[in-house]
């Protein structure tokens, strides 16, 4: 399988504070990689560097074979991002928001794309609704539609189901699984929901204090650390001293 994301020894310093201390990983086509770690472990900084919003202090990032540095615009056409911490303009209707982003991503057949995504994400009846008046679950699905408007090869998800009720959360997870299989995209999933990570991710990176302290598939990690589930593994690693594998 081809690696769509390759991260080689990236570091990020904010002055004297080393937020990310030289991490390397790759994500294959048709793979969801989980990025776990306590708050302040460097997950958001890593995602920021992958999106080109943050300049690594050193190291290299390749997306679909292209180096991010010097090819930012070409790469941004192939990736997208969803996070509960960013929103779409609240006063615009759902369709207006999706049309704006369709234009920004230079999509030719915007209406067809919006129709396709609204059908897949159960947004048909909401297209003319004001985005700011939607429920959290509806807003989340609209953000997901925006993140898929450009048919990204790489999707970065920062806590995509945070604050969703179990039904909507399950819908989003199922949708992501199906979409990934169908389009063979790579997904980086940063989440604090261990059940979600266990269900979706083929492999996991555990980060702490800017380094990767462990990696493997969920089952391997659970067995290796002698715990019942991933949540217990997470707690063990978060509370222990760093152990680089």
């Amino acid at each position, binding site marked *: 399988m081809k690696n769509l994301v390759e991260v080689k020894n990236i570091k990020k310093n904010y002055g004297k504070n080393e937020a990310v201390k030289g991490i390397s990983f790759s994500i294959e086509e048709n793979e969801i990689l989980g990025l776990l770690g306590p708050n302040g472990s460097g997950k958001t900084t890593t*995602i*920021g560097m992958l999106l080109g*919003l*943050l*300049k690594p202090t050193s190291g290299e990032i390749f997306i679909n074979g292209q180096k991010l540095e010097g090819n930012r*615009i070409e790469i941004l056409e192939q990736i997208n991002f969803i*996070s509960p*911490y960013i*929103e779409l303009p609240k006063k615009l209707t759902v369709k207006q928001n999706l049309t704006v*982003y369709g234009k920004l991503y230079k999509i030719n057949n915007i209406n067809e794309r919006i129709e396709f995504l609204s059908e897949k994400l159960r947004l048909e009846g909401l297209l003319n609704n004001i985005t700011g008046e939607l429920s959290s679950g509806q807003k989340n699905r609209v953000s997901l539609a925006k993140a898929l408007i450009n048919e990204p090869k790489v999707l970065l998800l920062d806590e995509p189901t945070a604050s969703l009720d179990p039904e909507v959360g399950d819908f989003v997870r199922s949708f992501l699984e199906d979409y990934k299989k169908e389009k063979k995209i790579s997904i980086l999933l940063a989440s604090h929901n261990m059940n979600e990570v266990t269900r979706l991710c083929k492999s996991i990176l555990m980060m702490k204090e800017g380094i990767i302290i462990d990696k493997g598939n969920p089952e391997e990690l659970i067995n290796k650390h002698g715990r019942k589930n991933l949540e217990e593994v997470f707690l063990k690693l978060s509370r222990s001293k760093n152990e680089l594998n």
Partner: protein
Amino acid sequence: MYGLFLRHFYLITRSFPRVLDLVYWPTIQITLWGFISNFFATHTTYYNNAVGVILTCAILYDFLFRTSIGFNMLFLEEIWSRNFTNLFIAPMKIGEILTSLVATALIRALIGLIPAVLLTSPLFGISILDLGIFLFFLFLSLYLFGITLGILVSAGLLRYGPSFENIAWSTMFLLAPFGCIYYPIEILPEVFQKIAYLLPLVYIFEEARNILINQTVDIQNIYYAFLWNGVYFVLSIVLFYYSFNVAKNKGTLINMGE
């Protein structure tokens, strides 16, 4: 009660722009109105033969204000709506972002300007069109300076984050006393005159008054206005790119709006 006082006291003391904001507005208002009062006290007959001069200058200044604030508003709207990150991860070059903001700011300013221009004639019997063909050059010059200020403030927002917002609202007022909008440059103290001559505003408003009062055109004023506009415009673009790079190093782009 004391708790609520403390909540705002902590906020003000933790933010230098907020402290500056408290001092800034009264100082600027007093300076501006001080110069205006001085002028009218010593030049009572200056506007006798050109009653529309003040109103024309007010419309010109408002166009500048709308253009600059309009540009800032477009940028701030993205921060307030927490859409900023979405915008900066879209495949748009910085030049494309700036160009679209510049064009949108013009449309916003024109929407505000046209009714004001149309109202002055029936209400006050004054037409800004009395400035003739040179009105176009004056407006173009003001538009250039307005978006230049907008780009400079946006560069500050990129560099320092949302705390720079207060500066966004106050740039126009800081320049107003030096712009010589309602009085000739001679009314300013010598040191202020030197500063004023480094701004395109003084040439624009001096020329507007010259055309309306003396019925003559001094091309040199228009030339200097465009010259300084060009200098500041290039500087603002360079600064915006610089701030974008600083923001990428500092992480402002990913935290903006949080």
